[in-house]
């Protein structure tokens, strides 16, 4: 197992490097000039040259990349062009806000999605299966920003039970999951955010189980005299690797925050910051956010790989 961990870690290095190249290239791939946003429209050629030099835009691209990467590895993503604050603070602040959201949304999505999938997969073709599959399709198909707005109308506007937007009176730094005054702000966005992953997870769990159900070894288990409970336990373990892969992806998406959902609820998370950075053409913030999110994806995939290897011995060999 140790060898596998090591091997997967080594595999992750070129991926991380590739991602950083893409992030760096954003400056040149993005249409328009990032300097336009900070320079006055009537700036002289001297000023432009000065600023260019200050930001290092006048050096050869590989050199720029090398300097950028060395700084990034030291945790220095530069300054936000729009707010003039360090990118690290902006990105980490927004990520932690999204993480707060995810602490509710992820368990909610995984628990409900997985359970629904297991129920549907245990009774394929039955009315429970049809109900679950139908709801899952609905969860995936309904635009979640629309669901968010509907929830706000019902619970905030009509019932006045839950707040509609923001992170509460204490702000993001003092936000606590264990204080109702804060927690109530989390409920609607978390539910809205969980909707799509619930649908996706329910469907993939069901599909994985339904495939396992038809395999020969299930007949063997039955022929051994095992009860349905023990048989389902065997099937669940077999069905787990693909489900874990889906969970990993969904976890990554949830950490990326949903631009639309966070905008509907004005939740200052990574999606919100990302959308602001796009509008302001704030390339350093974009680079920083995307790089961090990509690293979260890489790390999640690493964990998924290792969990899969722990469950399925055939993956360990590969």
């Amino acid at each position: 197992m140790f060898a596998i961990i090591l091997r997967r870690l080594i595999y992750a290095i070129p991926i991380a490097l590739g991602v950083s190249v893409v992030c760096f290239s954003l400056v040149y791939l993005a249409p328009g000039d990032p300097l336009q946003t900070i320079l006055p429209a009537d700036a002289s050629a001297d000023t432009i040259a000065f600023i260019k030099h200050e930001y290092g835009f006048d050096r050869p691209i590989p050199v720029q990349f090398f300097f950028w990467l060395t700084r990034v590895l030291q945790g220095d993503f530069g300054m936000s062009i729009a707010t003039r604050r360090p990118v690290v603070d902006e990105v980490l602040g927004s990520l932690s806000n999204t993480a707060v959201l995810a602490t509710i949304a992820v368990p909610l999505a995984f628990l409900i999605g997985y359970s629904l999938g297991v129920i549907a997969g245990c009774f394929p073709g039955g009315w429970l299966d049809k109900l679950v599959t139908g709801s899952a399709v609905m969860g995936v198909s309904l635009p979640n920003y629309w669901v968010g707005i509907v929830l706000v109308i019902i619970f905030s506007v009509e019932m006045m039970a839950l707040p509609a937007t923001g992170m509460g009176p204490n702000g993001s730094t003092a936000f606590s999951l264990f204080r109702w005054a804060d927690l109530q702000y989390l409920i609607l966005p978390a539910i809205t955010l969980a909707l799509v992953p619930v649908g996706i997870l329910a469907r993939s769990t069901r599909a994985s189980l339904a495939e396992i159900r038809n395999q020969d070894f299930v007949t063997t288990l039955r022929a051994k005299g095992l009860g349905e409970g023990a048989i389902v336990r065997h099937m669940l373990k077999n069905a787990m690797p693909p489900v874990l892969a889906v969970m990993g992806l969904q976890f990554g998406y949830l950490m990326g925050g949903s631009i639309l959902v966070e905008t509907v609820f004005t939740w200052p998370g990574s999606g919100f910051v990302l959308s602001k950075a796009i509008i302001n053409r704030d390339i350093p913030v974009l680079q920083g956010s995307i790089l961090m999110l990509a690293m979260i994806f890489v790390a999640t995939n690493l964990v998924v790989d290792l969990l899969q290897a722990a469950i399925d011995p055939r993956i360990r060999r590969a």
Partner: protein
Amino acid sequence: MDGTLMPQADIAPLVEIEDLTVRFTSREATVSAVNGVSFSVKPGEVLCILGESGSGKSVTLRAMMRLLPEKRTTITGRITIAGQDVLGLNARDLRALRGGLVSMIFQEPMTALDPVYTVGEQIIETLRKHRNMSREGARARALDLFELVKIPSPERRLDSYPHELSGGLRQRAMIAMALSCGPRLLLADEPTTALDATVQIQVLILLRRLQRELGMGTIFVTHDLGVASEIADRIAVMYAGRIVEEGPVADILANPRHPYTQGLMASTVHGQHRDADIQAIPGSPPDLRRMPAGCSFGPRCPTSQPRCREAFPPISHPSADRMVRCFREGEEAKASF
């Protein structure tokens, strides 16, 4: 597991199947897989069910443990194993029967074992289910079983996953699992078909030895006449969901009465002259969704007569322990008077 002393008083058959029919219903069609099969197996006896794919032999076997999908399957008739009415058992007694009184070996040991558990865990699970053993006790017993089925370095193999074993070893592990709780009846569904020829013989010899040592009644399903002649006490030849001929193995091989059995023998390599062509049976088995009226072998039978298309031939007994279902059989008996 003291099969050395066969209880002589126990002359009652271990297995009695009476007029078993199995139908699979789907939206498109109803498939009559088994159409009135009756046979019995005495304790310690090996019955081979011989037939080609789709003849209903595996379905018969699975019906005996009620392993067919319940929703889509209609089973009628009687299945009695060691005095228990299998079709009438409740879920709890059925679980006790499966793996306890009766166990099954499958054709494809790669897919028949759970890939994410070690073979040892799978045997221990069975033992603990039926025997209420401790984990350590069950492991010790699993080790004994691995030695019994002649798996080399058994201690290490117990902790192997199915994909880490060769086909032959996997099937031996499967056999060890089937034998773990000392079944009185072993159902073997083409257990050697998926194996290499040399391994096939080894597994066959092992099965025959274990069957004798443990005194299990055995029903062995195969399409291979050679395998059947190797292991069987009696042979039942199945065609299109019916047993068309049954009797002691030597009798059947020496003197097949049913045209289908004769065809099977003619289409098998058994020391003919090397230049002689092997004769195939013309045509193919009937569509089980639309069974022909009359004898189901009729359309392929070289001796078919008009009446063969009208009704299925009745049972005739050429001798006390033989059964044939062919119109010709009665004829010859009459002619010999």
